[in-house]
């Protein structure tokens, strides 16, 4: 019964994909005059530009071929404007991971403090409420001015956008640890530090992990926009560069790759959160 419904879901998924590809294929068929373009010229200036400024929407076959090409040689490096998609993704992932880990290092201890102490909570709450709704990209000019480095600024933007969900979830998780469990630790005369590590942390861990999962999602959303602004390297810059090249096929390939990587990041965090979850 369960197996059958799973199979049906798979079939339905495939059917949706197939029909989407079919519609896409039908809609883009016959457009553009790629056959007339001189191959050498095309290689020099890019497919779309070679077609004379027209930007024919590529069909699924072409995008598929493009992605296949990218995956064949993801790490080539032919100068600042032509790097393999693997290198670009690696740059983006690197920035995301540094900013994200820095945010975790700040957010989890501070969230702990906020969750443990109502005074700290009341003192910091106004700042959190004001800072949280600011679009992370609004920090970019300020970051560029003070940090004087585009890459570091992008990392800072990732830091600032991923800090809030982790901070708020940690504080919430810590504050809502069952009083019973804390009483157990108290009646056993367990020190405050040990209680924090052996009772509060595992009790709040699932909530903290939820915050971390939200944060990694937001960080991955923001890095693309940030790299479009800072330029140079990264998958966001790649997308913008391909827009300047009018290579729609590359843009679509990059979009799909961004989605895949985002999905993998989320799956990774989901697996980690399963490790710390518990049933009451």
């Amino acid at each position, binding site marked *: 019964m369960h197996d059958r419904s799973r199979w049906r879901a798979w079939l339905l998924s495939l059917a949706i994909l197939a029909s989407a590809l079919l519609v896409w294929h039908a809609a883009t068929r016959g457009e553009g005059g790629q056959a007339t373009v001189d191959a050498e010229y095309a290689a020099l200036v890019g497919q779309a530009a070679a077609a004379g400024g027209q930007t024919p929407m590529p069909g699924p076959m072409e995008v598929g071929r493009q992605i296949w090409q990218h995956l064949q040689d993801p790490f080539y490096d032919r100068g600042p404007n032509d790097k393999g998609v693997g290198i670009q993704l690696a740059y983006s992932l690197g920035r995301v991971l540094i900013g994200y880990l820095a945010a975790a290092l700040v957010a989890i201890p501070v969230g702990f403090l906020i969750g443990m102490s109502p005074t700290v909570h009341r003192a910091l709450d106004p700042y959190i409420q004001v800072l949280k709704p600011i679009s992370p990209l609004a920090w970019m000019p300020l970051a560029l001015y003070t940090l004087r480095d585009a890459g570091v600024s992008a990392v800072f933007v990732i830091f600032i956008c991923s800090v809030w969900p982790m901070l708020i979830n940690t504080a919430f998780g810590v504050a809502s640890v069952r009083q019973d*469990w804390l*009483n*157990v630790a108290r009646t*056993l005369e367990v020190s405050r530090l040990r209680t924090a590590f*052996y009772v509060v942390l*595992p009790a709040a861990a699932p909530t903290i992990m939820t915050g971390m999962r939200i944060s990694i999602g937001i960080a991955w959303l923001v890095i693309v926009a940030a790299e479009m602004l800072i330029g140079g390297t990264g998958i966001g810059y790649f997308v913008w560069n391909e827009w300047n090249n009018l290579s729609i096929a590359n843009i679509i390939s990059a979009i799909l790759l961004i989605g895949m990587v985002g999905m993998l990041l989320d799956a990774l965090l989901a697996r980690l959160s399963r490790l*710390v979850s*518990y049933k*009451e």
Partner: protein
Amino acid sequence: MDRHASNRKKALLMRPFVEVQSLAKRYPGRDGRLGPPVFENVSFGIGRGEFVCVIGHSGCGKSTILNILAGIDRATEGVVIMDGREVVGPSLERGVVFQAHALLPWLTALQNVEFGVRARWPQFTRAQVREHSVRYLDMVGLGRALDKRPAELSGGMKQRVGIARAFAIQPKMLLLDEPFGALDALTRGTIQDELRQIVHATGQTVFMITHDVDEAILLADRILLMSAGPHARIAETVVVKLARNRTRSSLHHDPSYYEIRNHLVDFLVLRAGHPPTQENQA
């Protein structure tokens, strides 16, 4: 019977092991000023090795009294003295079995007990901690469920782990807050018998809260009856003069059992100063 009489005489001569002196608890109202006391003038003693039960309606502050004895809560007035020292905070000298078992759900049964044992004897090696904890889980019949997490245990087994955790730290006094309230009647009966045996064998001093009249008669040497709150107090103390080795199966053959039972039920229904509710007629 004779032993009880001499025990009581001794208790009168000596200061009891635990002395509770004119305890009162008031909570601040909306305006921030203290409201009327939930209970007041609560005084009693507990002898070493004695099993004392408190019975009373919901809201009379039984749990608060237990928490004050545990050192988790503070009394507005009055003091608790145990073994000559005032109770000012939680201590490993008093083990608590919580109402809702309060096991840490991410730890196994064994780890839950070990958590307390390690706190009690920090100098123990890992093997010693384990050996000691296993012994107490064996005592409550959970020797085969060491590595199960609380979610995989039945309600009765969870409460047994809670009991093992409290016993394992070898406290001078054991505090039980309606430990069997959430269990079905059959399981409750089994664990009551077990608890009775363990307490009997170890000579443990116990203070227990219960809603269940039969449970109190089965387990307690002395039963404190509390009137309803606010202004709750200990209205009466009933000494249970039944054989110390009584069991659930022999209890109802003792003629004085019904005498005590009727007395307690009458108190709860008629004299506790609270309209009778179904819960208490049970």
